[in-house]
């Protein structure tokens, strides 16, 4: 069930470094999960029995052999089987489950499709995994108002699938879109290749039905364009399953453009490619995508996919949309700009076949690298203007650590995906890779950027939060969780450094409950 959905990608690629426990040292910082609450574990039988009273038999999984299927997400190096798994079918069932877990002081980890690269859906031994995979219905399609309402377990691609017959689409398109659920997209505020033009999840989400930890069902927003009151919708988007369980979502759908075509450009210098990106944007053209690949990625993916890429230091793929004539005009302008930067190659697509060939290498980049190596995929964002400096520094850091780093990313918005190559069978190499990863992410922050552009913090970047935020900044964020989930039972060990959240988490509430029960 868990990482198998996307075998070609993710942490470690094809040959994942499967390590049996979750106490690996990572980046020299603490990746431990909190000690499971013994009092919860001791009451497993009673808790499972309560859950079985409100759910059908097959919707409560508690045999150890079966809960293993939920032991990790796509951050597969870290695993832990949960106490139980529930698979409710509707908002009401979610509410019943949460009421029980709230009453019993059981931590709950919401789960969509388990494709998080940050460990967002990683269980703890004492938790109940609340999976929304069975909740995948389309509730309403409304072309007049350009919205669709779905249950949150529906996969991203099948939302577009539901409106494609009418030539509409749902814009955010993470590369995991075949597998990942709208629930996970909302929790992570996921992006995609086309977000330069269409924005990320938060820009395309109009409403949610959500269940709070105590079972209260709330509705925020709807088919109207601005929800009233404080922007709670914006707050929930990207909250990594810590504020509530989203069960339904109202999403904006858009009419498909008439067409789209890319141009491929090769340069002898990554800095020149960076300058070209900046010039294109300054000229007032707004492409839907600007993708960047460096030499390592160009070579590897070309060998793998035979895309016919030029032999050069940096490659850009720039795609524009519109009618044939509109595309021609925009591409002409872009090519004109590119020429001023002495490209070694300029290849404008003239047909769907040529477009597919241009995209082929880019789309197989991760898979290609996974074929030759284990790799770790980072996700920092930087100001586009810092691209040359950051690329240079990443190269230097790679040499210092003795590891190769490939770069393939969304250049238009500065969301980098450095791929660190390592050998999982070489003792110490994973640790070295993680240490380099931490240095690269700190570099992104120091360059004016951030730790994560679209994958989320989860457990992976939890302790690096101190590098980006002050204690007061983190306190303000944790105060939000205090309001939505005062007992800190929803996905409690994620996002915030464990030492920062310690006084709020933990068994305090469970202790109270045991006290109540004894009284």
């Amino acid at each position, binding site marked *: 069930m868990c990482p198998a959905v996307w075998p070609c990608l993710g942490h470690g690629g094809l040959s994942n470094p499967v390590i049996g426990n979750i106490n690996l040292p990572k980046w020299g910082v603490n990746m431990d999960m909190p000690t499971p609450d013994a009092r919860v574990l001791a009451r497993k039988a009673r808790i499972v029995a309560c859950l079985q009273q409100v759910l059908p038999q097959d919707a409560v999984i508690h045999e150890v052999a079966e809960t293993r299927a939920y032991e990790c997400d796509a951050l597969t190096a870290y695993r832990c089987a949960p106490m139980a798994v529930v698979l409710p079918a509707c908002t009401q069932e979610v509410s019943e489950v949460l009421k029980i877990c709230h009453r019993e002081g059981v931590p709950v980890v919401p789960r969509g499709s388990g494709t998080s690269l940050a460990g967002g859906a990683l269980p703890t031994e004492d938790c109940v995994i609340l999976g929304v995979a069975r909740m995948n219905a389309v509730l309403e399609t409304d072309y007049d*108002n350009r919205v669709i309402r779905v249950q949150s377990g529906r996969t991203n691609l099948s939302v577009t699938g539901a409106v494609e017959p009418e030539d509409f689409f749902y814009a955010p398109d993470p590369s995991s879109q075949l597998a990942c659920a709208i629930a996970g997209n909302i929790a992570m505020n996921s992006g995609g290749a086309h977000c330069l033009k269409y924005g990320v999840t938060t820009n395309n989400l109009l409403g949610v039905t959500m269940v709070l930890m105590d079972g209260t069902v709330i509705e925020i927003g709807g088919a109207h364009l601005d929800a009233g009151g404080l922007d709670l919708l914006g707050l929930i988007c990207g909250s990594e399953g810590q504020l509530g369980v989203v069960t339904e979502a109202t999403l904006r759908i858009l009419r498909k453009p008439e067409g789209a075509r890319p141009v491929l450009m090769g340069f002898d210098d990554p800095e020149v490619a960076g300058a070209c990106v900046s010039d294109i944007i300054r000229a007032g053209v707004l492409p839907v995508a600007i993708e960047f690949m460096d030499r390592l990625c160009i070579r590897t993916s070309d060998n793998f996919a035979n895309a016919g890429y030029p032999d050069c230091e940096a490659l850009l793929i720039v795609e524009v949309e519109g009618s044939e004539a509109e595309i021609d005009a925009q591409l002409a302008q872009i090519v004109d700009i590119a020429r001023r930067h002495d490209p070694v190659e300029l290849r404008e697509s003239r047909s769907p076949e040529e477009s597919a060939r241009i995209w082929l290498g880019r789309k197989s980049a991760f898979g290609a690298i996974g074929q030759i190596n284990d790799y770790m995929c980072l996700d920092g964002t930087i100001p586009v203007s810092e691209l040359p400096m950051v690329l240079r520094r990443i190269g230097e850091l790679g040499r210092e650590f003795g590891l190769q780093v490939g770069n393939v990313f969304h250049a238009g918005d500065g969301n980098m995906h450095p791929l660190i190559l390592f050998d999982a069978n070489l003792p110490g190499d994973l640790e070295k890779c993680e240490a380099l990863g931490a240095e690269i992410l700190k570099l992104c922050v120091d360059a004016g950027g951030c730790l994560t552009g679209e994958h989320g913090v989860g457990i992976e970047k939890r302790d690096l939060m101190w590098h980006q935020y*002050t204690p007061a900044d983190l306190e303000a964020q944790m105060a939000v969780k205090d309001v939505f989930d005062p007992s800190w039972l929803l996905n409690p060990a994620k996002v915030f450094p464990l030492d920062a959240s310690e006084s709020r988490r933990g068994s305090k509430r469970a202790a109270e409950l045991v006290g109540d029960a004894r009284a």
Partner: protein
Amino acid sequence: MDIAQTESEMAACVAGASGPVAIRGGGTRGLVLPGEVLTTSGLVGVQLYEPGALTLVASAGTPVAEIETLLAAENQQLAFEPMDHRALLGTSGAPTIGGVVAANVSGPRRIQAGACRDFMLGVRYVDGTGAVIKNGGRVMKNVTGYDLVRLMGGSWGTLGVLTQVSLKVLPRPQAQATLCVPDCDMAQAVKTMSVALGSPFEITGAAYVTDRAEVLLRIEGFSGSVAYRTGRLIDLLDRLGAVELRAEGAASGAIWKAIRDVEAFAGQPGDVWRVSIKPSDAPLIAPRLKADALLLDWGGGMIWARVPAGTDLRARIGQMSGHATLVRADPETRARLGMFHPQPAPLATISAGLRARFDPRGIFNTGLMDRHQPLGV
């Protein structure tokens, strides 16, 4: 109170406040709130503008006009098209970028480009204890921790005093045109706008001017593109009735500025409300308003209504999915009806909880968003 010239002076002002404070940017919204006025007028200046990265960082008190001029020199703009409230509300002063963000002010282009909140990249603010907090940053994609950026946008100063905002900006379109579909009743108008908005031609404005019974549609982009899309739209909409090219270039710009600022209601008597709904509900809800004048924007999803002073428009609407905001009224009506639509109990509880955390003494803009809850001072 002295005028804070820096963020740390602002923090000191807040920490030292002994009672309610009324946070003021340009003062163009005409709000009268209890307590001492805390102005952001000393926090001015653009700290960073990178046209090639589409990013701008400015102090909260910076006049919007200054930012728009700076952007225009690089052929860029604030794509969410913030409204200028002065004519409608009969106020003076200069709108500030902090005020725009705090009120999430978005104009006609909201239907295509997004709202102000969609262009926010980062904030710095002073919370109710006087602590300086930052969230987000200056990059386009950022999911590091909770998104307090959007929470602060549209929070009307009730959670903190914004000191700095970073925004995404966009290229200013080279050309624009406005199409007009005349002689529509409201149901036809909303249907026409829906057909246009459901086309691949990227409508950036869709309004219905009720007194003239005409639908206006805006197309923007490179000139070749505008010509092409205009032609295709005329073909598409012709099936629904006559369509004409109403204006191009600056004349088209003037039409949309008038819609953005609801100029038709300026200087006219009565209260002004803004009702946010699902576009197709407009023909059902509009008659219930019994308004003296109406203007529909956002393809029908935003109804501007002018009604006799003191009218409780929410009572007239009754059950609705959406919300009605009182934009212009005398202080007595504002106090009686409240500016914002009451929220369902669980949401009101969450909002009150957030306020209690961000502003534990309950001193910021009291009574503005929290009139249905007890004050916490």
